[in-house]
């Protein structure tokens, strides 16, 4: 406990917080990295539907493959590398290029036949309705 007196208390709190964050970063889904994948995904839920937003800028939407099979949604495609003209220098190269695939396990209560997909401003928005029986209903008390 000698070392503790050398540090103010909040340093330990800070370390603990960092450690927690590290653990969270490694607490990944079985289907892989949740933080650095391409495309980035946002998922939302309403009582009637599941809403998935895939951030896939700069792609012809017709080339994106969206598939639901056995309760698993797959978004796959390819983003071509930016052409580098002759005699030019690449200073920064951060944008994703190449084939991509992201997979999401869907909840049981959705109706896969109801899925719709729209592409706008580089975002693919997939909306999947929940099964009729799964939509919560308010029961009136008489």
């Amino acid at each position, binding site marked *: 406990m000698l070392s503790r007196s050398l540090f103010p208390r909040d340093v330990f709190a800070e370390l603990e917080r960092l450690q927690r964050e590290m653990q969270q970063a490694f607490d990944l889904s079985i289907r892989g990295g949740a933080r650095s994948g391409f495309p980035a995904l*946002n*998922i*939302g839920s309403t009582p009637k539907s599941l809403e998935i937003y895939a951030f896939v*800028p*700069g792609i012809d939407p017709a080339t994106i493959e969206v598939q639901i099979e056995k309760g698993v949604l797959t978004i796959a495609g390819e983003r071509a590398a930016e052409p*580098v*003209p002759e005699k*030019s220098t690449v200073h920064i190269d951060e944008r*994703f290029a190449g084939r991509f695939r992201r997979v999401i396990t869907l909840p049981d209560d959705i109706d896969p036949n109801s899925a719709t997909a729209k592409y706008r401003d580089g975002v693919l928005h997939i909306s999947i309705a929940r099964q009729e029986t799964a939509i919560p209903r308010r029961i009136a008390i008489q």
Partner: protein
Amino acid sequence: MTTAIEKTTAKSAQPEAALLPPVNVIEDANGITLSADLPGVPKDKVNLTVEADTLTIEGEVSLSLPEGMESLHAEVNLPRYRRVFTLSKELDADKVSAEFTNGVLKLRIPKVAHAQPKRIEIRVE
């Protein structure tokens, strides 16, 4: 030689937190091409400013969210992008041209005429 140096330190009066969009910067003899991924930003919410030697790219994310949606998982977790670059002298900030399609911003920053390469003959005497 790097002609566009990125400002790593945030300005003191930065308004709101923003995501850092990934960019590519390619330089050729006549100028620089910069492309940035800004998915979810409509064309009218892209904001480009050149002030003195500072180029700022900003964009506000606008998604059509159904009413009463609860977020389950978010990797894009801030509603805006921002990235700031310092332009060097030989770049002509007045002639920046931009296009924006499918969430990708493409900028062309030409070099000023006198900065374009001139081949210097070496004479052997």
